């Protein structure tokens, strides 16, 4: 139990140090507000802020789910359909390199200001780590086990579901963890695409009216949200990759 709290202690320590340093060196609040000020601003704004928070949270969750699903689907397709891998692989990489600045107007022009373009942006951010990790997982499936399966007449589907998927679960979770972490930032970025609500909106407004304390409220919210997502995935991993934990060492 003590171990689990060590991060919290460290965090508290950092916050206290920050507060102290801020007071000591008289850093102006607009440059770097003290944790107490940020906390205060968070409380003051709470009634409006939690709506932004909810909006971003549901957007990231939706985006993450579609992103993860798309990522797995892509991995499965590239892995199982032999002809697809070679031509499509480079395009998957390319998809990570279309800057949002370019994509944004196109997405808005094609899909308007609704939910869809935003989900597309998050999906684009989230699917990539999942695809790469899942593909690498599939590729590394134990040779002896593959031999047993093929000789026993397992269909491709069985080979996939009963061997390759469970075998690459740790890899897949590794990708999901990365994706979960990115999903919140992805949501915030996607809110640049003409949103009325969300932490991204709150933050730009705060930033453009020079309310650094509120900017930090937004940052803390983003961080907490991502941590939450991440640890939900870790819990799921613990549940699904249970057998690993019974290890000797």
């Amino acid at each position: 139990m003590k171990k689990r709290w060590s991060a919290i202690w460290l965090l508290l320590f950092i916050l206290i140090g920050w507060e102290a340093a801020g007071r000591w060196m008289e850093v102006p609040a607009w440059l770097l507000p003290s944790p107490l000020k940020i906390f205060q601003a968070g409380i003051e704004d709470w009634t409006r802020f939690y709506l932004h928070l909810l909006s971003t949270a549901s957007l990231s969750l939706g985006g993450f789910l579609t992103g993860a699903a798309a990522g797995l689907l892509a991995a499965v397709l590239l892995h199982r359909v032999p002809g697809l891998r070679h031509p499509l692989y480079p395009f998957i990489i390319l998809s990570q390199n279309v800057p949002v600045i370019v994509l944004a107007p196109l997405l808005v022009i094609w899909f308007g200001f609704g939910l869809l373009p935003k989900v597309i942006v998050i999906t684009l951010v989230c699917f990539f780590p999942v695809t790469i990790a899942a593909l690498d997982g599939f590729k590394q499936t134990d040779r002896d086990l593959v031999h047993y399966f093929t000789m026993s007449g397992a269909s491709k589907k069985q080979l996939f579901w009963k061997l390759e998927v469970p075998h690459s679960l740790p890899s897949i979770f590794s990708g999901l963890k990365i994706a979960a972490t990115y999903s919140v930032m992805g949501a915030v970025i996607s809110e640049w695409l003409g949103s009325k609500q969300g932490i991204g909106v709150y933050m730009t407004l705060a930033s453009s009216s020079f309310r650094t304390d509120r900017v930090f409220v937004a940052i803390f919210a983003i961080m907490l949200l991502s941590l939450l997502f991440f640890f939900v995935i870790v819990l799921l991993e613990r549940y699904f990759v249970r057998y690993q934990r019974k290890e000797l060492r």
Partner: protein
Amino acid sequence: GEKTGTTDKLKKVTVVLDWTPNTNHTGLYVAKEKGFFKEEGLDVDIIMPGDAGADQLVASGKADFGVSYQEGITQARIQDVPIVSIAAVIQHNTSGFASPADKNITSPKDYEKKTYGGWGSPIEKQIISSLMEKENADVEKLNIVNMGDTDFFTAVKRDIDFAWIFYGWTGIEAEIRGEKLNMQYLTDYSKKLDYYTPVLATNEKMIAKDPETVKAFLKASSKGYEFAIDKPDEAADILIKEVPDLDPELVKKSQQWLSPKYQDDADRWGEQKLSVWQNYGDWMYDHKLLEKKLDAKKAYTNEFLPK
């Protein structure tokens, strides 16, 4: 804004802002909140474009109207982007080069051996150069740094000595913080640089196909801006109410400063002059900032402003 059961008879119209809402946009929010748009049969949706960039959205017709700048429209038209300015939000250019007072930069000749923080556009260099030439200073002795998204106050804490700001927002924030600024307005140095910023814009198709809506939109908008001119405090409150995440103090002070500048010396709010478009276009062309000459008459129109 409030919505009533009659919304379905109203025409849906979208306006994209240039970036986040600020006092440049007060008139639009007033018109929405006070029901001026509705009176004209419009249901207006105000949208922040984020990275999407308002001009493309307006030009492509995805948004009906947008907030833009003369500079942007000029460049856009040179690239055949069919966007047209339909009203000047502020009559005169309120931007200029600002620096903290303790840097002692009181005129463009002091720019020598200083560092300017910008966003890397060739236009900046030409404008600074024009200012410095007037004072016989050499622009080559100025160090220009690209400071990207960094905000003014942060930038001048470090390597940067001065930057280009809108007084009506960043300058007012400095007042609130009690930081003394030195400011050289563009208009003080060259009439040619007194261009419109910001403006309301729409696309050519809209003008051709639905002039009534443009007229209605501008009628309501000008009522909104006139309200803001007459009652800056009330107008500021409306903006704060519509966008509660803005800083109220900044909005109020900024509104006080800006309200008289919307119409300024013009006959009516929104009026644009051919000379302004011509001058700045020529200036840009002369400084090799445009590939060809601007057809100024097509870049703007006063046709839809209420009489």
